[in-house]
């Protein structure tokens, strides 16, 4: 499978909040295993969707400076309703604080009006060149990749919508 868990950014207010959506399709391969008789979005994929939403908020808030954004800590991840194929996970992520190397968030996802997941997250941000200055080219490539992907999922439109009075 692919590992992109944000299909569209709906609202974006850097450095405060993001609203994004993950649509669940029965064409996604892992659903064949989870579970054969009852396909549902795995709980950790809900968490990953929240992590990736928060990562977009970090990129939009820091001009894409750091290229690798990873989950460092998740706390109190609670699950409610299942997300089934044809359903959409609507994610709302609020920043508690975004620093240069780490950030903290409160995040929740709902599906068809029911709470599906909520969590507190800490992310870490880094550049590959932090560890290995000889690989700054990888950062440049990733930065360009993220900027292009941001356009694909409606980032600029979400920013523009916010700029309108």
């Amino acid at each position, binding site marked *: 499978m692919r590992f992109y868990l944000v299909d569209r950014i709906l609202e974006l207010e850097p450095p405060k909040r993001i609203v994004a959506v993950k649509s669940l399709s029965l064409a996604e391969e892992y659903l064949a295993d989870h579970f054969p008789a009852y396909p549902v979005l795995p709980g950790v994929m809900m968490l990953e969707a929240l992590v990736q939403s928060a990562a977009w908020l970090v990129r939009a808030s820091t001009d894409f400076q750091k*290229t690798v954004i*990873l989950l460092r800590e998740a706390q109190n991840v609670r699950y409610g309703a299942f997300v089934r194929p044809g359903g959409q996970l609507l994610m709302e992520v609020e920043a508690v604080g975004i620093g240069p190397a780490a950030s903290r968030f409160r995040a929740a996802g709902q599906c068809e009006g029911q709470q599906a997941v909520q969590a507190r997250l800490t992310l870490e941000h880094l550049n590959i060149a932090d560890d290995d200055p000889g690989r700054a080219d990888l950062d440049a490539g*990733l930065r360009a990749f993220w900027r292009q992907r941001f356009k694909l999922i409606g980032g600029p439109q979400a920013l523009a919508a916010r700029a309108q009075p």
Partner: protein
Amino acid sequence: MRWIWIDKFVEFERGRRAVAVKNVSLAEEHLHDHFPGYPVHPPTLMIEGMAQTGGVLVGEALDFREKVILAKVTRARFHRRVVPGDQIRLEAAVVGEVRPEGASIDGRITRGADLVAEIQMMFAHLDQSRAPLELGDENFVFTEDFIRLLRMRQLNHLAPPPPRRDVPQEGRP
């Protein structure tokens, strides 16, 4: 990709603790998206590996009668990045005992001597009132993949050897 985030069990003590390993390989598709040019095994999939290790441990304790689902990740902390070529070891221990309503797991992930992650999680036994009605009594959680994983050869050395049968030798009176 498939949805199975452990490769084999290497230790298993019924209702108490289980240890599984997972190899991280560039042959896995998700590593090419996470991230392009810089593959890192996603922390969330390590949580899932622990959920599968702990879920089988909890499910087996009641002979896979209950539908065991992940109800809460109390805390997951990651200390090191895991990259292709690494083998991680996932150790899950039941906190207290498996109860009628579910169980808690205390988990550690290591790579060699290094601590990769500490994960605490809770499982619930999905009771019939919350279970999807269309499923009836089928236990959709424990697919054959997991049960086969548990019964694979790797665990045999942990069990007492089968009694040796005396084989009649040919050519002897």
